[in-house]
C-alpha cells in the first residue's frame, strides 16, 4: 500500500467524494414527473392507441382491405376479412380487428398502409378491465379516432409514419404521396337518428 493509498483510506477521501456528489445531487432539481398532475410532452412519432382515420368525405374508414398491414404485422394481431359486394362484385372491408394486447406498437401497419387509413395515435391512457375492451373492431377504431381528434388543439393532424422521413417518397403509392393533413373536426354532420347500418352506408358509397 503506497502512502497515497494510505492517506486516501485514512481520510475517507473516496467516501467524501461520493458524499460531495450526493449532496450536489440533493441541491439539483428532481427529474420526477408527477404523473396524473403533470404529463410528459408527447413528441411527433409517438405510437399509442390504434385508430382509423375518419375520412372527411365519407365519414367512414378509408381502409381498402389490401391486407398489407395484416401481412407485415410482426405479431400478427390484425385480422381482416373482405366480402364481395353482390351488386357489383367489388371487394369491401367486412371486418377489421386489432388485438391491442398482442400489438408491439412497431408502427409498420401505419407505414405500409397505402391510403393512410390507420394511425397509432398519441393516446396512451387506455387501460381496461377486460380483454374485450382492448380488442379493437372497425367501429371501435373509428371511435378511437374521434376521441383522439376531439383532444387535438390543431385543426388538422398528420402522422409522421404516413410518410416517414428518410424514405424515397416518389416510390410510395399515390394515396400516400398525396396524403395531406386530415381534419380533426368532423366535416360531415352526424345523423340525428340512429347510426346508419353498414349496408346503407356501403350503398351510399357506391352512388
Amino acid at each position, binding site marked *: 500500500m503506497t502512502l497515497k493509498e494510505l492517506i486516501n483510506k485514512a481520510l475517507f477521501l473516496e*467516501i467524501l467524494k*461520493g*458524499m460531495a*456528489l*450526493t*449532496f450536489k*445531487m*440533493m441541491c*439539483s*432539481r*428532481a*427529474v*420526477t414527473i*408527477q404523473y396524473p398532475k403533470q404529463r410528459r410532452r408527447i413528441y411527433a412519432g409517438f405510437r399509442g392507441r390504434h385508430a382509423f382515420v375518419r375520412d372527411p368525405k365519407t365519414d367512414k374508414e378509408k381502409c381498402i382491405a389490401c391486407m398489407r398491414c395484416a401481412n407485415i404485422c410482426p405479431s400478427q394481431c390484425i385480422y381482416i376479412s373482405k366480402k364481395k359486394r353482390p351488386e357489383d362484385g367489388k371487394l369491401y372491408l367486412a371486418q377489421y380487428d386489432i388485438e391491442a394486447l398482442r400489438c408491439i406498437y412497431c408502427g409498420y401497419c401505419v407505414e405500409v398502409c397505402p391510403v393512410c387509413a390507420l394511425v397509432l395515435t398519441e393516446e396512451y391512457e387506455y387501460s381496461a378491465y377486460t380483454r374485450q375492451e382492448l380488442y379493437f373492431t372497425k367501429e371501435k377504431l373509428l371511435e378511437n379516432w374521434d376521441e383522439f381528434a376531439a383532444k387535438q388543439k390543431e385543426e388538422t393532424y398528420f402522422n409522421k409514419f404516413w410518410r416517414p422521413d428518410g424514405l424515397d417518397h416518389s416510390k410510395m403509392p399515390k394515396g400516400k404521396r398525396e396524403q395531406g393533413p386530415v381534419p380533426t373536426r368532423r366535416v360531415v354532420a352526424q345523423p340525428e337518428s340512429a347510426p346508419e347500418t353498414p349496408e346503407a352506408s356501403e350503398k351510399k358509397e357506391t352512388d
Partner: protein
Amino acid sequence: MNELLGVFGSGPTATFLIELLIIIVKIAVIIAITMLHVAYATYFERKVIGHMQVRLGPMRVGPHGLLQPIADGVKLFFKEDIIPAQADRPVFQIAPFVAIFATLSSLAVIPFFDLFYLANINIGLLYLLAMSGLAAYSLIMSGWGSNSKYSFLGGLRSTAQVISYEIALAFSLVSVMIMAGSMNLIEIVMAQQEYWYGMYLVPQIVAYIVFLIAMLAETNRTPFDLPEAESELVAGYFTEYSGMRFALFFLGEYVGMIVMSSIAVVCFWGGWTLPPIVVKLIPPLAAVPGIIWFILKVYIHIFFFYWIRATVPRYRYDKLMALGWKILIPVALANVIATALVKFIF
C-alpha cells in the same frame, strides 16, 4: 402552583408524590416529542434520500407528502399481527418490546437543555452504553424466536456486529470521559465550555470519527446494515414480524438513531451550549434557548445518517468485522492512551 399541588397535602409523602407526578409528565412529554420526531424522521429520510437520488420522495399524502408518516403509522397499526406457527411465542412477542424499551429508556439520561432531563445520574455514559447493549438482546431474541433462517442469520449477524462495535464506541467515549473527568452527561457538557471552541470535537476528532462509524454500526444503518440486508436476508431479524410489532422495531431503530445522535452531540458537540467564542462575538445568540441548538445539532447528525445511506454501499461481512476489530478498536484504544497521557502530563 402550590395550591394546585395542595391536593397531595404536605409532608414527605406529598413531596414524593409531587415529584413523581412531575417525572411522569416529563416522561410523557419526552416520549411524545420523540415519537413525533421519529415519525417525521422517516419523512425527512425519504425526502433527503429522494432528492439525493434526484427524485422527489413522498408527495401525495398532504402537501408535499407531509401527512405520509401519519398514514404509514395508521396503516401499520391496523395491520394483522402474524405470529409464525413454529415460532417461540413468548420470545417472539417480547423481542420488539425489549427493542423499544432499551432505546426509549436511553432518553432518560440525555440532557436536552439546561435543566431538562429525567435523571441526572453520575454514570450517565455507562447507562447509555448498557442500554445500547440491552438492545442487542432484542435482536438475538427476535432472530431466535422467529424460527426462520433469515431471521436467525440476521439476528446472529447483528449481535456479532453490535457487540464488536460497542467496544469501539465505548473506547471513543472513554477518551471523552477522561477529558471531562466525569461520566455525568451534564458535567461532560459543562467541561466542554472551558475551551474557547466549546466542544470536544476539536481535541477528540479521532474519537469522534470512530464514534460516528461505530454509531452507524450500532444502529444497523447503511453501510453496516448487514443484519437487514434485503438482498440476502429479506429483512433480517424482523422478517417474520408484521403490523404493530414490526412498527416497534422500526421505532426502536429510529429512536436509537436519535439517541446515538444525542450522545454524539452531548459528548462531542457541546450539547445544548454554543462555543463561548461564538457567544462572545454575537451576544444575542445567548438568548436563544439551548433546546434549539440541541435539536439543530441532533438533526445534523441524523442528516449525516441519511447522507451516508444515500452514498455508501453495504460492507461485506468479513470486511465489516475486520474494520471493527483491526482498525477501529486499535485506533480508539490508542486515542484513549494518548488522551490519558496528555491529561496526565499537563
